[in-house]
C-alpha cells in the first residue's frame, strides 16, 4: 500500500519554497483524495495481500449488480450501515439496487425496512420461496474478527454463525455474500448474474478482513477512571450480578464456560420474542428468524462488545437503537424466559436470571461506551502514526465517534473536549501543507490526554498483558 510520508525534515527555506511550488498541484490532488482507509502497517508481511483485499473489498463488483462488500460495510461508518448513514447516500447508490433494477424489485430487499431500520434481506433457509421465506437482518461490522470467529464447533460467521458456504470459514464467506447480495437477477446463475471470487481473491479478502480493528482481546478489569464506568465494569464481570462476562469474556465475543474456552458460541437469548420489534411494527409480514441452521434452532452468534457502542442498532434484527436499551434487554421477560435466561435463573439461588436496576443498566452501558471510545482512540492514534492514504479522514471519523459515544452517555466531558480538539486538528492537518506535522502532533497529544482521562496507568508487573493496547 502506498504511504503518504508527510514528515517534513529541516530544509533551507528557498528549497522548501521551490518544493512547495513544484508539488502544489500534486498536493492539491492529495488533499482532495479523501477516500477513507484502514491503516496497514507497511512492515506487516501480509501488507500486499491486505492491500489487495482492501481493493477487492471496496471496488470489486464481481460482475454483479454493482454492489461491493463496502456497499454494506463502508469504512467511513465503522464497516456497517445504519439508517442515519443510509439517509446520506444518493438514490443511485448500489445499496438501493432493489429500487433501481427492475429485475430485483421484488423479493431481493425490503426498501422500507432498509431505509428505516438498516435491515438487509437474507434467504438463510433457502431460495425456493422468496415471497415468504426470508429474514431481515442488520449488517454486522467486520472489526476485531481475529477474536470473534473461532469456536470448538468450527468457524462462526454472520448473525447466526452459519453465514458462509463451503467449509463455513471467513474465507468462504465472500462467496455466499456474492450469491446473496450481488446478483443481477434472482436467477442467481454463476457466470451470468455474477462471477464467483477466485481462490486468490478469497485469500486477499480474508487477510483484509482479519486486519481490521482490534487484533487482541482485552484483559478485564481495566484501570478505568470514571466512577460510573468503573462500577459498570464491576457489574459486567460479576458472574452473580451482571453475568455479562460469562458469554462476553473480556467484553469480546467468546464465552468461558466451566473454565473451558467455548469460543464464539451461539445462544438463544429470546430476541425474537421481544413484543414490539420495530420491523414487525413497520411490516407485520416479516417472518420470525429461526437463527442457526435449516430449519433453525433459534440461536444466534455472540458479537463483540468492545466495538458495540458506535455500531448500533443492536441485535440481529436491529431491534434496539441504544446501547442502554441493549443492556436493559437482559432485564426483560424476552431474555429471562429464553433458553439462555432460564438456565441462568434455574441455577441462581434466588431464581433470578439477570435483574439490574436502572442505574446499573446505565453503568454497564457507560462501561461499554468507555471501552468503545478507548478503541476509537487507539485506532485514531494508529492511523495518525502510520499515516497511509486517506488515514487522516479516517482518524477524524474515529475521533468523532469516540466523542459521540462518550457525550451520548454524558461521560467524561473533559475527554470529549480533548477529542473535539483532536478532530479539529486532524481535519486542519488534512488541509495544511506547512503545518501538517505540527497539527498531527497536537492531535496526538489531545488524543492521549483524552485517553488519560478515561483510563489509568498499568501496573508494570502486568506490562505484557493485552490491556496495554489502551494504555501504552
Amino acid at each position, binding site marked *: 500500500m502506498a504511504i503518504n510520508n508527510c514528515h517534513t525534515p529541516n530544509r533551507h527555506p528557498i528549497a522548501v519554497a521551490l518544493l512547495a511550488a513544484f508539488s502544489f498541484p500534486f498536493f492539491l490532488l492529495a488533499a482532495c483524495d479523501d477516500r477513507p482507509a484502514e491503516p496497514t502497517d507497511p512492515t506487516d508481511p501480509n501488507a500486499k495481500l491486505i492491500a489487495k483485499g482492501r481493493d477487492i473489498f471496496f471496488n470489486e463488483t464481481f460482475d454483479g449488480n454493482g454492489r461491493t462488500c463496502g456497499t454494506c460495510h463502508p469504512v467511513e461508518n465503522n464497516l456497517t450501515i445504519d439508517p442515519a448513514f443510509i439517509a446520506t447516500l444518493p438514490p443511485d447508490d448500489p445499496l438501493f439496487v432493489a429500487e433501481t433494477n427492475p429485475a430485483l424489485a421484488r423479493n431481493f430487499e425490503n426498501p422500507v425496512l432498509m431505509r428505516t431500520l438498516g435491515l438487509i434481506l437474507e434467504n438463510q433457509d433457502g431460495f425456493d420461496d422468496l415471497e415468504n421465506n426470508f429474514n431481515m437482518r442488520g449488517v454486522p461490522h467486520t472489526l476485531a474478527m481475529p477474536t470473534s470467529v473461532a469456536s470448538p464447533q468450527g468457524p462462526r460467521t454472520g448473525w447466526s454463525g452459519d453465514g458462509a458456504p463451503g*467449509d463455513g470459514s471467513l474465507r468462504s464467506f465472500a462467496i455466499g455474500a456474492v*450469491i446473496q447480495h450481488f446478483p443481477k437477477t434472482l436467477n442467481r446463475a454463476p457466470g451470468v448474474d455474477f462471477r464467483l471470487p477466485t481462490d486468490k481473491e478469497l485469500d486477499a479478502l480474508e487477510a483484509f478482513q482479519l486486519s481490521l480493528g482490534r487484533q487482541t482481546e482485552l484483559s478485564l478489569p481495566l484501570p478505568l477512571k470514571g466512577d460510573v464506568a468503573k462500577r459498570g465494569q464491576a457489574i459486567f464481570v460479576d458472574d452473580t450480578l451482571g453475568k455479562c462476562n460469562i458469554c462476553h469474556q473480556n467484553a469480546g465475543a467468546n464465552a468461558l464456560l466451566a*473454565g473451558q474456552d467455548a469460543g464464539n458460541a451461539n445462544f438463544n437469548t429470546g430476541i425474537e420474542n421481544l413484543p414490539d420489534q420495530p420491523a414487525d411494527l413497520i411490516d407485520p409480514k416479516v417472518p420470525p428468524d429461526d437463527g442457526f441452521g435449516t430449519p433453525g434452532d433459534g440461536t444466534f452468534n455472540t458479537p463483540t462488545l468492545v466495538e458495540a457502542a458506535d455500531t448500533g442498532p443492536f441485535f440481529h434484527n436491529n431491534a434496539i437503537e441504544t446501547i442502554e436499551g441493549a443492556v436493559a434487554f437482559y432485564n426483560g421477560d424476552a431474555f429471562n424466559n429464553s433458553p439462555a435466561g432460564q438456565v441462568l435463573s434455574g441455577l441462581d439461588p434466588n431464581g433470578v436470571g439477570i435483574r439490574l436496576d436502572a442505574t446499573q443498566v446505565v453503568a454497564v452501558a457507560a462501561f461499554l461506551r468507555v471501552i468503545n471510545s478507548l478503541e476509537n482512540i487507539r485506532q485514531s492514534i494508529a492511523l495518525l502514526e502510520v499515516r497511509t492514504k486517506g488515514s487522516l479522514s479516517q482518524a477524524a471519523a474515529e475521533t468523532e465517534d469516540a466523542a459521540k459515544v462518550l457525550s451520548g452517555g454524558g461521560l467524561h466531558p473533559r475527554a470529549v473536549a480533548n477529542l473535539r480538539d483532536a478532530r479539529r486538528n486532524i481535519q486542519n492537518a488534512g488541509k495544511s501543507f506547512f503545518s501538517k506535522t505540527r497539527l498531527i502532533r497536537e492531535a496526538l497529544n489531545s488524543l492521549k490526554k483524552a485517553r488519560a482521562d478515561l483510563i489509568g496507568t498499568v501496573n508494570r508487573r502486568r506490562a505484557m498483558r493485552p490491556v496495554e493496547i489502551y494504555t501504552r
Partner: protein
Amino acid sequence: MTVTLRTAIATIATALVMMVGQPSTMGHMATERYIPIGRSPGVSNKLSYIGTIQAYDHARRMVTLKGAGDPITVSITERTRIWLDLSKIKKANRVGETSALQVGRRTEVKFENADLRKIADWIKVEILQSE
C-alpha cells in the same frame, strides 16, 4: 444445602455448554447450491469427492462414483441435499431429486464425515443440456 459460588458458576457454565452444544459448523446450505462443482471453498477435493456416476442403486439409495483414485460408494439419506449444477449451460442451479443420479454424469459429493466417506451430506450433479 449450601451452594458455593464456584459450584453455582460451574453448574451454570456446564448447563450453558450443553445449551450451546451444537452440530459442527455447517456451510450455509442456501448459497452452497449455487456454487459449481469443484468450487466449494474449503470443501471441494478436501471434504468432497468429484467423479462420474458409475451406478445408482435405487433400492439401497447408494451411488457409486469414479474419479481420481479408487471408486467410492456413498449412501443417500433423507438429509442429503441434491442440487443440479447448470452453470455450464449458464442457467441457475436447482434443487434436484435422486432421478438426476444418472450413470455418466459428473458429480460432487460432500461427505457428512470426511473420514468415514460413507454418507452424502450433499450431492451436486452436472447437467449439460436443458431439460
